[in-house]
């Protein structure tokens, strides 16, 4: 079935062959866990699982894909009026309307060796009804799905590269567009538009402009002023948040103070060190340690904890990997991550530096094309 609503800016197509590839990965994971039927459930709070598994852009109550270990999957959607679009856009052959997900899921979960994903993202009332119909406890299949989705397919990687290019473009557009007096939310709107008109469907966007930022936050109506440091987390998504890429950078309104340049240089060094640690097999925590070691070497080790920083990196959407000191799970080739040594310094405040990569067997592919510097708007 042709898919007619892909974005023109991409060469990547989520067609049946792509879904077959993803389903093969999920089924391999199901085999490991001894699952014969996996119900991949998405509520509005977690719409990305169904997008990954069925290429359905969720609207309304929810959707579930019933994926057997062998045989045809069935996509059930919760809005009857959207059935025509769902059948047009999902490459799957069997798409149905389902008015009662709890009964459907509970009934299907009576199947031996069955499991359901992301029940934790639904209400206790829904989960209770599912369990009641299933006749007892149900097995959580979230980890089964997450394991399969950690390594991005070539199509997903292509979409993430496009998202990264959108982030770069948006930042440069902001650098070009920003003028003193412009409220934060207006610059955010300019950046959003630059990304959306070129193919982003949404953006995890944080941006703050202060002379001394404590953190990156949401935009307010504060006017941007000379001397402000503008810190950004720009995270456009292509087709769905699963295909997001993040860029973190800092703009100085006017020439940057020497102390700012010095701290940005520390972050650039930390960025280098973090990326140098990235390759398949490296525990995620080592990427964190590499960044923190640089910041500590320069005398700011005591600030390498919350609230002076939040995290040293992570993935997006399904198969998300956290770069934290506690996470010893090895990186895998095909993982897509942002590595960001974003950091608060007592003299200059919070500064932003971070880049998107795809992990390879021998290292990483850097997706960001921008310089590691403070961008000075003069």
């Amino acid at each position, binding site marked *: 079935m042709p898919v*007619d*609503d*892909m*974005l*023109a800016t991409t060469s990547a197509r989520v067609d049946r062959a792509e879904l077959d590839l993803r389903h093969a990965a999920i089924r391999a994971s199901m085999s490991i866990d001894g699952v014969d039927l996996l119900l991949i459930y998405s*509520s*509005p*709070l*977690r*719409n990305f699982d169904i997008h990954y598994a069925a290429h359905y*852009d969720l*609207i*309304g*109550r929810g959707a579930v894909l019933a994926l057997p270990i062998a045989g045809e999957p069935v996509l059930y959607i*919760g*809005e*009857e*009026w*959207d059935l*025509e*679009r769902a059948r047009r*856009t999902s490459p799957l052959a069997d798409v149905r309307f389902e008015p009662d997900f709890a009964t459907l899921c509970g009934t299907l979960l009576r199947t031996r060796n069955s499991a359901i994903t992301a*029940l*934790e*993202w*639904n*209400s*206790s*009332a829904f*989960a*209770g009804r599912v369990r009641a119909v299933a006749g007892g406890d149900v097995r959580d299949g979230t980890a089964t799905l997450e394991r399969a989705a950690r390594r991005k397919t070539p199509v997903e990687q292509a979409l993430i590269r496009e998202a990264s290019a959108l982030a770069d473009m948006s930042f440069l557009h902001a650098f070009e567009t920003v003028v003193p007096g412009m409220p934060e*939310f*207006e610059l*955010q*709107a*300019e950046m*959003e*538009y630059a990304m*959306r*008109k070129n*193919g982003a*469907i*949404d*953006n*995890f966007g*944080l941006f703050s402009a202060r002379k001394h930022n*404590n*953190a990156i*936050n*949401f*935009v*307010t*109506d504060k006017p941007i002023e000379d001397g402000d440091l503008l810190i950004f987390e720009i995270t456009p*998504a292509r087709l769905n*948040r699963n295909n*997001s890429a993040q860029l973190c950078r800092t703009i100085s309104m006017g020439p940057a103070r020497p102390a700012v340049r010095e701290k940005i240089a520390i972050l650039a060094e930390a960025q280098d060190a973090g990326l140098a640690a990235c390759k398949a097999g490296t525990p995620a925590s080592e990427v964190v340690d590499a960044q923190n070691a640089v910041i500590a070497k320069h005398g700011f080790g005591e600030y390498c904890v*919350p*609230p002076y920083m*939040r995290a040293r990196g992570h993935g997006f959407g399904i198969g998300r990997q*956290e770069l934290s000191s506690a996470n010893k799970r090895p990186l895998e080739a095909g993982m897509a991550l942002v590595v960001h040594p974003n950091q608060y310094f007592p003299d200059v405040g919070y500064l932003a530096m971070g880049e998107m990569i795809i992990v390879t067997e021998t290292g990483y592919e850097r997706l960001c094309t921008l310089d590691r510097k403070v961008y000075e708007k003069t």
Partner: protein
Amino acid sequence: VSLLRLPILIHGLTRWDKTLMPESDVEARLARVREAMRDRGLDALWSYSNMEHDGNIAYLTNFRPFDPRMPGLALVTADNLEAVLKVSKRDLAFILTHIWSPAEPSDFLSDEFPGQVAAAIERCGLKGKRIGFSGRAMMPPALEPKIMALFPQGVTEVDGMIEGLRRHKSAPERELLRMAAERAEGVLREATAFAAAGRSEHELMAYADYVARKAGALDVDILMHAGFERMPPAGELEQLPFRPASERLLSAREQLGVYVALQFEGYWAEASDSIYVGGASLAERDAHDRCAAAFETLCGNLGQKHRAGAVSSWVHGLGLERDELPLSSAGQAAAQNGDLLAAHVAFESDGARAFYGRTIECTAGRGVLLSPALQSA
């Protein structure tokens, strides 16, 4: 019907503008909540909200969960208001700039939430007190038993209590809704001017989104309906066929339905209309006129059981959420004076289609536009 789509992150203009929502109005609101608690014999009220249904905690504290991982619990007692929010300390510092209650952070990657609630129970001396709880069924299955275990004496479930209070909008709330409706109207107007053959639906969505954000929207959702897609059956009350934009290029002559949901200072307004790319034919003009007339008829019959005959329609309450009391179309009969509503109509005659929807106020039994509407598509 639900057209709900949650963004990755709500990240538009975030603030508490006290000139638009005065502290006196907040105090009056909390007084009404406490009165409702007294009526039910409650010493304290806990209210759980998540990003999908965030109206109650926004009503009580002005906190709007901006990320699906970040729900919150608000606590109201006779002399206290506070919240436990599943957000990082870093985010809380910003959140405290625009909420009107003290709040405790509970990092969203941790499992501290029940412990934080337990500490609040201890701190506020709530053990053995009569506790009301709203939103229990919304809590995730792993969290719900942990929270409920903190109330060994049980709770009185009061789902619907705050929603009922939210239905009655104050003057500042009505003004915020009017401002939101005005902005939604502007988005429709700009989108209509922007639409042209060769531009994609996605570009049109991006531009409409841009107009909304430049106008200070906290959040926005733009949905579409193309002429080749299925229309709802005539007389249908809950089938409004708007869906996310595609990359399809607009043709030289086509009819396109556009739906705008826009959140301003926390309050949602909606608008829908038809855009006739390349100009409307006589049949399309007639269809749009008849659709607008059906909208007027619908507005004139609020409060009565009414099936719209040749058109399909959708009416529901608006406010801090996109779907508030009175809930959807079966409830068209339940509208009361003072209700703030979205009313949408879809109409088709001999292949000519039209949509018309606006944010209205129920006054003297009929719906009155909150913002001057476009005179023609």
